[in-house]
């Protein structure tokens, strides 16, 4: 395999792994429910995106054709992440989860 492709794959795998790890750390470290929502919708999205991209490069460099299913997985992930975050936020507001001290503004009631 082309060494450039190998470096690119290794780099993207590391990047993806790092972001996924940081997303998990954020889930444990951030102080309240609403701030924890931010981890999975962003850091992890890029993490999975990078891993998928490395998979695309791997299969393309091996000559198996471009991996369209990886692209589809990424698209589905980008479409579903905001929806799940939104539903989680709504549910949390509905049952009145406490926000951390120093949060400005308030969730509304309706």
């Amino acid at each position, binding site marked *: 395999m082309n060494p450039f492709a190998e470096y690119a794959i290794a780099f993207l795998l590391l990047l993806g792994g790092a972001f996924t790890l940081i997303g998990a750390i954020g889930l444990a470290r951030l102080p309240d429910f*609403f701030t924890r*929502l*931010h981890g999975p919708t*962003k850091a992890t999205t890029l993490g999975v995106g990078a891993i998928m991209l490395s998979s695309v490069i791997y299969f393309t460099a091996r000559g198996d054709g471009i991996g369209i299913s990886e692209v589809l997985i990424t698209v589905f992930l*980008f479409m579903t992440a*905001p929806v799940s975050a939104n539903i989680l*936020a709504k549910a949390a507001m509905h049952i009145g989860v406490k926000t951390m001290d120093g*949060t400005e503004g308030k969730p509304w009631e309706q």
Partner: protein
Amino acid sequence: MLDRLSFPQPWLSLILFVTWQFLSDGISGGSLVLGLILAWAIPQMTQGFWPERPSFMRFWLMPKYLARVLKDIVIASFEVAALIISPRKPRPAFVCYPLELEHPLAISILASTISLTPGTVSADVSDDQRLLLIHALDTEDEQEVISTIRKRYEQPLLEMFK
């Protein structure tokens, strides 16, 4: 009766059909038939959930918007990652964002964009669809959040759905 056999959302049906061909291992008779069935059944089942179609939409502006969002997702991920690792506490805030967009589809695109981009998650839309409640992870100034979203995302969407 004939209603049941039609394709109420032709574009959605086409996208579903093509997506199914990509998902299955190579195009075969079976994948074509199953793709057709899915392209017919899914729009039929979800018909009640779709908002009214916008009267006019500038589709060709979409790629530019998507490129901008993709770039912002990458930047946002680095910012959030840095904040998670740094020892200082985040300064979260709930921000009420007054919507200029009116079409439900445009609002849901904006809300999804907000959830994916720098430090913000959209939490709720008010019942009259005029306000969007946003949770910002780390912000000092509410107005800044609002003006950034207005400039970067809502203006292009307004142009698209005018």
